[in-house]
């Protein structure tokens, strides 16, 4: 593989290039797209979880232009994906489903028309209550990211029977809504032949693929533009029904740009979420802390509309050595909105169960939790038998412990506060997507690299210029990256922490081709393109980023109030392209992990058929006062197998293990073991001294 040996730009600490636009609010997001005389679209959502729409009456509000209705809207060419087959018939499959839309000259008129709309529907019995004890659980064909549903090696049951010490516990995670700060938004313009979408998305090319298929349009007739994205965390990874409705609305009013920005409330039913997981975790150990068996059996809900199986059992397959291992996933299909990716699907909930169980085992054995993990470090990937391309877990645990001040940890009390510390491991696969293309052009002494990639706050604008600079062997100041437009070459989705690894590989290839074709003194207008396929080393090595997270937790002895005054993460995630933005991504993931540990939960009321926590007053995310002392660092890791840059991806690993570290620290502080997230004071109170 080509490697970048002489790095000048990669590793440099740079201010993000679009920063000036962002601090003034002049970076254009999808709903900010400058268009002439936009009209405004508001959605009508189903008031019941199952049934049929029998009528929609919208009064003649001044400024109302048109109404789209379930059953009578434009017929879509492809309805293969039920989530996107919006308004095609009158059936209702979940509460909060799109059953109509109003389009008006002003946002006030659109809102008024939607408010006054009268929806009539029949109601049928709904099934929305999840329980792991349901008798209709089923085994999905595979789980998210294409992993096998169940795995087994050796005989875990026998290992559990013969082990000196066992831990068998059930851990549960809550329902989480991604809630990027920017609501999913579209500005859509149909000129009669061509569709132009300003979209908030993690991938302009994947959105174009979806839209062309759904509407039966040729790819060259659809352009998707998304230079800045106000966060996504997975919910903007694929087009949801709102994008299709925005396009339908535009096609109903040719020549008029249509704005459709979801309300915060609508985001709770339309753009996905992370499902609850119930994880039965099993550990079998010798008296000196060597694991003979590990197991994880996951039960989760999904939607009847489209299946999504959160692969929470997957990290258990590879995390620690043990000859006997078993994992499984079972689902309950319900009349609920469609789940999707949320930051580190699989690893995030899975490593909560895994890492709290390891803490319980360490306690049972009287072994230091870090030492227990070190004792079970595998020589090769236990799941595949392949060697690791690099595995920095022990280094993260050891150096992280030193930085955090782990040794000599003791439960103590400061005034009214019970103080404890906790640790957990982090892991996330080093993915590279199989296809991306980058284009390089030289003019006026400067290089422009174009690729239809995305910056969700990830620092892509800057990092891709850094990679191109090293690929070309020129100062980064001479390179400009252009991203976020389907007029640029194909880029894979910003998902699975694969963005920089995938797009960067294409850029390195484009730079190589450029130098091969034009040498070091290119003429004005010189161009080259680089395209990548799959990484051949993917089949030879197990490739993962690792980390160790440390938390200090204070619990108020009288009220049970929980504070996290210190959170520290140490990561081994390959080469870091831009330390400034990388640190932000890592502490951002950890902050979301803290939020998951202490605050977030979407509460479903089965009578209502949907979550009742539909805004930031009810669905709590961490605020500044909750999480202002979060620190992250990394060890210098050189992995020549992953890709030419040596990057492993850092967007997701920060959230993996955080909740376990916090719950373990709360246990250390109080002696109470809470296995059900979020960790709230009502759960701790009965156990306090």
């Amino acid at each position: 593989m080509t490697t970048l040996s002489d790095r000048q730009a990669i590793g440099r600490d740079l201010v993000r290039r679009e920063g000036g636009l962002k601090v003034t609010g002049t970076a254009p997001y999808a709903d900010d797209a400058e268009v002439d005389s936009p009209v405004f679209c508001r959605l009508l959502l189903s008031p019941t979880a199952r049934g049929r729409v029998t009528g929609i009456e919208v009064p003649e509000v001044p400024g109302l232009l048109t109404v789209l209705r379930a059953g009578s809207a434009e017929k879509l060419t492809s309805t293969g994906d039920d989530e996107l087959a919006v308004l095609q018939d009158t059936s209702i499959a979940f509460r909060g489903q799109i059953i109509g839309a109003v389009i008006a000259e002003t946002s006030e008129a659109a809102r008024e028309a939607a408010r006054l709309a009268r929806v009539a529907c029949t109601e049928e019995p709904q099934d929305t209550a999840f329980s792991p004890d349901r008798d209709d659980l089923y085994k999905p064909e595979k789980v998210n990211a294409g992993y096998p549903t169940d795995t087994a090696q050796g005989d875990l049951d026998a290992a559990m029977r013969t082990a000196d010490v066992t831990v068998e516990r059930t851990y549960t995670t809550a329902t989480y809504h991604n809630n990027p700060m920017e609501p999913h938004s579209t500005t859509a313009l149909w000129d009669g032949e061509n569709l132009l979408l300003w979209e908030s998305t993690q991938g302009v090319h994947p959105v174009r693929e979806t839209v062309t298929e759904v509407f039966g349009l040729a790819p060259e007739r659809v352009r998707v533009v998304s230079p800045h994205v106000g966060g996504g965390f997975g919910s903007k990874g694929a087009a949801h029904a709102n994008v299709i409705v925005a396009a339908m609305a535009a096609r109903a009013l040719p020549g008029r740009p249509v704005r459709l920005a979801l309300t915060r409330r609508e985001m709770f039913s339309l753009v996905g979420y992370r499902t609850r997981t119930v994880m039965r975790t099993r550990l079998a150990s010798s008296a000196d802390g060597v694991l003979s068996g590990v197991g994880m059996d996951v039960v989760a809900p999904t939607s009847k509309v489209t299946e999504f199986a959160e692969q929470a059992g997957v990290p258990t397959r590879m995390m620690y050595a043990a000859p006997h291992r078993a994992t499984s996933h079972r689902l309950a299909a319900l009349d609920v909105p469609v789940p999707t990716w949320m930051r580190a699907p699989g690893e995030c909930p899975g490593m909560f169960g895994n890492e709290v169980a390891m803490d319980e085992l360490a306690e049972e054995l009287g072994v230091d939790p870090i030492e227990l993990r070190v004792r079970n470090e595998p020589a090769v990937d236990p799941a595949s038998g392949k060697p690791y391309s690099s595995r920095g877990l022990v280094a993260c645990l050891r150096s992280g412990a030193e930085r955090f001040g782990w040794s000599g940890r003791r439960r103590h009390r400061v005034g009214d506060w019970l103080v404890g510390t906790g640790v957990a491991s982090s892991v996330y696969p080093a993915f590279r997507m199989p296809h991306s293309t980058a284009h390089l052009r030289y003019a006026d002494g400067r290089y422009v690299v174009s690729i239809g990639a995305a910056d969700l706050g990830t620092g892509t604008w800057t990092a891709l210029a850094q990679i191109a600079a090293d690929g070309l062997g020129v100062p980064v100041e001479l390179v400009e990256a252009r991203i976020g437009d389907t007029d640029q070459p194909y880029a894979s989705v910003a998902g699975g922490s694969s963005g920089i690894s995938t797009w960067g590989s294409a850029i390195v290839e484009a730079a190589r081709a450029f130098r091969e074709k034009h040498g070091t003194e290119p003429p004005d207008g010189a161009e080259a393109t680089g395209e990548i396929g799959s990484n051949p080393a993917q089949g030879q090595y197990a490739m993962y980023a690792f980390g160790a997270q440390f938390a200090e937790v204070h619990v108020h002895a009288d009220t049970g109030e929980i504070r996290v005054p210190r959170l520290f993460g140490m990561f081994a995630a390959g080469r870091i392209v831009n330390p400034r933005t990388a640190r932000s991504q890592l502490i951002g993931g950890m902050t979301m992990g803290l939020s998951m540990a202490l605050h977030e939960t979407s509460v479903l009321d089965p009578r209502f058929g949907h979550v009742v926590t539909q805004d930031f007053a009810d669905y709590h995310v961490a605020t500044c006062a909750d999480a202002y002392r979060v620190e992250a660092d990394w060890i210098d890791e050189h992995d020549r197998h992953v890709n030419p840059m040596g990057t492993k991806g850092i967007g997701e690993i920060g959230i993996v293990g955080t909740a376990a570290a916090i719950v373990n620290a709360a246990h250390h502080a109080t002696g109470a073991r809470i296995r059900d997230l979020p960790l709230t004071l009502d759960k701790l109170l009965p156990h306090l001294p």
Partner: protein
Amino acid sequence: METDVTLRVDGAEHDLRIEPRTTLLDALRERVGNTSPKRGCDHGQCGSCTVLVGGRRVLSCLTLAVRCHLAEVTTARGLGQSGPHPVQQAFLDHDGFQCGFCTPGQICSAVGMLSEFSQGHPSHASADVAAEPDLTESEVAERMSGNLCRCGAYANIVPALLDVAGGS
């Protein structure tokens, strides 16, 4: 029913004919064409739409435009009109943002917060509400907690603002 309103936005006057129900956020984004304030929730729960009215931070999604007639409205765009405002520069220096969507609101909120602090306003984090407050980490964090950041930049925002306060 519409009414005439003059908004002074970032130093420029805009004569608008708007409905009384139009919020300041909608007026700015859809009539004035200033999309610097963002709509994160439209319910006053996230702070993304924060602007300064007469130097005080307000949630523009909960403010009717008609009550801002002739008032000085400042957005993050206006704060940066002649080069980055010290708060904006501190956000750049400390990487106090990622996706940037909540950032214009954070910036306006921070400017308003620092002004409240300089006037001696206490916060929930102040041990003695009658005493002159110290701008500690916890004071800044408490006073900025009306502005949600889902990317999790709080740990950068707090030192950024302590820097600004220390330097002023």
